[in-house]
């Protein structure tokens, strides 16, 4: 057990535990807050994987925008602040079974592939991942077009969201 492995295991426990809380807790606002914990854990994972930029963006975008949006939505869609009735559907057992089956299948697939036990490739010397990422996002020879397309998608989604949620004054 190296220290990194210990950190990974702690982080994994944090992620999975909070994710379980997200899907099982009765108070919806707590679910959203637990989601933030999960997202934070994933950010730590990114840091472990030496993707610092993504770790920070994960916090800024996911926690700073998406999770807050969730909390807003939760608050806007209720009369009382507490959820008292059960939040799971009646047949949640079947869903759990399906989830477990899917996990078993995925785990089987993952472990049966050759080379999953490998350790990380060496970081090339002098590679500034942030710079490389930036360059590949704006280089026409790399991912400029997908990047632009996605930005247009985002714009369209925002306009759509504003339009949908807009209260029309009749």
């Amino acid at each position, binding site marked *: 057990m190296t220290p990194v492995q210990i950190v990974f295991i702690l982080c994994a426990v944090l992620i999975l535990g909070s994710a379980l809380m997200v*899907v099982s807790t009765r108070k919806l606002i707590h679910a959203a807050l637990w*989601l933030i914990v999960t997202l934070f854990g994933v950010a730590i994972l990114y840091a472990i994987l030496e993707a610092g930029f993504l770790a920070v963006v994960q916090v800024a975008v996911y926690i700073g925008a998406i999770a807050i949006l969730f909390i807003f939505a939760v608050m806007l869609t209720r009369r009382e602040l507490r959820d008292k009735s059960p939040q799971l559907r009646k047949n949640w057992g079947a869903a759990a079974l399906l989830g477990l089956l899917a*996990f078993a299948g995925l785990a089987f697939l993952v472990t049966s592939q050759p080379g999953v036990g490998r350790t990380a490739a060496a970081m090339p010397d002098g590679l500034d*991942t942030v710079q490389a990422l930036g360059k590949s996002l704006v280089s026409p020879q790399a991912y400029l077009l997908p990047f632009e397309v*996605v930005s247009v998608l985002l714009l369209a989604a925002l306009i759509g969201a504003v339009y949908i949620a807009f209260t029309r004054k009749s």
Partner: protein
Amino acid sequence: MSIPLSWFLILSAALFCIGLFGVLARKNAIAILLGIELMLNAVNINLVAFWRYLDPAQMAGQVFVIIVFAVAAAEVAVGLALIISVYRRRNTVVADEIDMMKW
């Protein structure tokens, strides 16, 4: 780094399936979206892990993650707007009760 790749993959599979459970089992439409977020994050873990373990000089994995971020933001914006708009008209956010095309 001394962590085998399979750890990340198993973790991501587990997170994905928890998200799946959330999507399938929760009543509240917002909670379903929460589950979808978990699933997207599981995918992202995979992408970053493969980037790191296979070829760090090739930025495809990270670029994909950024695209997933954008898509997630778009999805949440539109999804939540829809839910709020439905709530205004129907006073419910339970997914099972929103089962008609028109009302």
